[in-house]
């Protein structure tokens, strides 16, 4: 019995010791990995790192997997990679359903987060504090140049911070005005001629409400990105050029928000959060909905099920001024923990931002193909876009597009939350727009230290 006790206690001591030393060893290994990964550039070396017989697992945190309308398209993209290039090279990508925060908590918990479908507005913060790597530091130069050559330069610049690419533009869209044909026709309007200005949109929304009793127009105050497009369209800005000061309470900014609020005071706006409005539009109870094209495939199905046709128009503008849509969507931010992982991640990125990848993304989700060359290529997207002209609207808007604001690193999440809360309050309540926005502007400037 004594002997048995001795054996058990020895096992416990050994186990404890190994776990303690393992804890101590972890940072060193990570540090050496980080150091070696930046040295690595050689193609031959990289290829030898991947072995089809012993595939390496890569985690891909994707918020698209969390949206019912985008899930199947994104799953298809991942599976297509795993079944083709992944199998050939020895890479298995595991899709992780993300809610915009899961990857952060997993990083904090010490789990390996390899690729994140990251939004642009807080990219600077992630690059500074969450271990994301610049593409130029970890991927082979020649291949990087070749891959980037197919992208439009304004799309590439979105994820660049101080000259380095921390996020490669991935899924991408502009807001378009979705239209429910049935509610338009019931109100005596022509769904193929969408309103072009905000005044026309308000007038159409009033007509629809009177005739059908259904809400005329929807744009949720908590949408988180289109708001900026409305301000930009009226000549206002969110931050100044060097990102040191919030400036959204200009006359143009307040005027733009007051126009949006007019839909609420007239009682013709769909109420609730962005999620509520998505459900309302899908159920056929909302006539016009300003939303990202990423929801196109879901809305198309809803329209077919509800027996109405889905039309779309460009984002409305102010008077004669053309609208300035912002880009929604995401970039791919990466944080490999070894050279081998970096090589595996690069294979996945090359595939999903390649011709085949964008064909799946555009035709099955609705995001824009950032390789515009494939839209006229019958081998890829030409037929699909011809059959779904709504996507041309999205492509047309690209020329006037402006990127969403990237809030400065340290204060990014806090400042963007203050901006959004103030927008929600000024649009959806009786509060005075100028007062609410001015208060938020002061709070953000306090944070920015200006």
């Amino acid at each position, binding site marked *: 019995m004594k002997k048995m006790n001795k054996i058990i206690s020895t096992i416990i001591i050994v186990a404890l010791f190994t776990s303690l030393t393992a804890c101590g060893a*972890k*940072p060193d290994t*990570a*540090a050496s990995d980080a150091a070696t990964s930046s040295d690595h550039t050689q193609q031959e070396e990289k290829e030898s790192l991947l072995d089809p017989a012993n595939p390496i697992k890569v985690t891909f945190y994707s918020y698209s997997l969390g949206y019912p309308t985008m899930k199947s398209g994104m799953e298809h993209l991942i599976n297509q990679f795993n079944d083709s290039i992944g199998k050939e090279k020895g890479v298995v990508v595991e899709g992780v359903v993300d809610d915009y*925060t899961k990857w*952060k*908590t997993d*990083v*904090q918990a*010490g789990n390996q987060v390899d690729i994140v479908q990251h939004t642009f507005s807080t990219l600077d*913060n992630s690059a500074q*504090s*969450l*271990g994301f790597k610049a593409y130029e530091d970890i991927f082979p130069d020649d291949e990087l140049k070749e891959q980037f050559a197919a992208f439009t330069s304004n799309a590439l610049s979105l994820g660049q911070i101080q000259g380095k690419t921390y996020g490669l533009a991935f899924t991408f869209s502009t807001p378009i005005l979705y239209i429910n044909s049935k509610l338009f026709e019931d109100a005596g309007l022509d769904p193929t001629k969408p309103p072009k200005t905000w005044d026309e949109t308000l007038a159409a929304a009033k007509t629809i409400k009177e005739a059908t009793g259904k*809400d005329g127009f929807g744009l949720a*105050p*908590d949408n988180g990105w289109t708001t900026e497009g409305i301000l930009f369209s009226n000549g206002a800005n969110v931050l100044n050029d060097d990102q040191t000061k919030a400036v959204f309470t200009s006359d143009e900014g307040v005027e733009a928000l007051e126009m949006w609020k007019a839909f609420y005071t007239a*009682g013709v706006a*769909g*109420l*609730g*959060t962005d999620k*509520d409005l998505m*459900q*309302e539009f899908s*159920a056929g*109870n*909302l006539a016009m909905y300003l939303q990202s094209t990423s929801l196109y495939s879901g809305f198309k199905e809803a329209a077919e099920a509800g027996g109405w046709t889905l039309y779309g128009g460009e984002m409305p503008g102010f008077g004669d001024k053309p609208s300035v849509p912002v880009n929604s969507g995401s970039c791919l931010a990466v944080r490999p923990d070894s050279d081998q992982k970096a090589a595996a991640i690069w294979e996945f990125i090359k595939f999903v931002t390649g011709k085949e990848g964008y064909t799946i993304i555009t035709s099955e989700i609705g995001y824009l193909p950032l390789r515009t060359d494939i839209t006229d290529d019958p081998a890829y997207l030409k037929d699909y876009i011809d059959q779904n002209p709504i996507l041309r609207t999205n492509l047309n808007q690209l020329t006037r597009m402006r990127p969403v604001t990237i809030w400065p690193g340290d204060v990014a*999440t*806090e400042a963007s*939350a*203050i901006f959004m*809360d*103030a927008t*929600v*309050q000024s649009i*959806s*309540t009786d509060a005075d727009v100028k007062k609410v926005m001015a208060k938020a502007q002061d*709070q953000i400037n*306090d944070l920015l230290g200006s």
Partner: protein
Amino acid sequence: MDPIIANDLMTYGKTVKKDRKTQWFQYVKPYLFLLPAIAIIIFWVYKPLLQTLQYSLYKWSMVPGTQPEYVGLANFTKLFKNKDFIPALKNTVIYIAGMLPFSVVLPLFIAAATHDLAGKAKNLYRALIFVPMIMPPVAVAIIFQWLLHPSNGLVNHLLLTWGITSDNIAFFANEAFAKTMIILISGWKMIGFSTLMFSSALSNIDFQYYEAAKLDGAGSIRRFFDMTLVLLSPTVMLMLMISVLFAGQWSFAYIDLLTTGGPFGSSTNIFYLMYKFAFNDLNVGLCAATATLFFIVFGIIALLMQFLSKKFAFYDN
């Protein structure tokens, strides 16, 4: 010295020594049994507590491999300047007050009313009341989201049909309704547990008191207030304490799932704010500073409640 005496003294000395050793062991023995429990409490409760106090003085993003930076009391000053802090404090108080009818008042009456029911009816009623308690919060949140949807929901449909309202109401995106909805849903979930506690306490009351009171001509309302309520006072005080201390935590899941603290931070509470500081803003220091303040304030409340409980609870022994 006489060798015999010397020998006796030595033997005596050894015995005393041995006795002392045994006595010492006897004294220590019970504490050895407690040691594992104490070690676990120290590791899981007091160590994190002290770490929280420590982190409240640091700036850190909790990312492995990064070092916390000492910032002194800056987190506390930042906390008081945060736009959501004071509203979150006020809301925490509102949630506590709002939960009391669901955790104490209603369950007390439901328990008393169903206590006299016989056999199967009693079990059926209790089961029906207890069901919400065992439903997962996510499922509850989704059901209420559907019911209370601004345009597609049943509640809005009925309100419009009956002419109670003329416009749809966005219950979770409207400042006037968001908090109330969170209280109603968290409360609805809470009734079952409290009712069960009160029912079990009621079963422990000696029925002879009621017999005697009936003979003296006391009516059911009189019996409830003069006897049931008095004899249940320890349970009432216990539920009151639990409710005050935990109301904020019970509403957390519904705030996160239904309003995410909105619209514009109007339905957030101190727990949700802590969560956002830590996992949205990745600011452990600010989160720890909030937790430290919360710990002090609620510690004082807990002590006060214990004092009240000792003063007002009536034990029937």
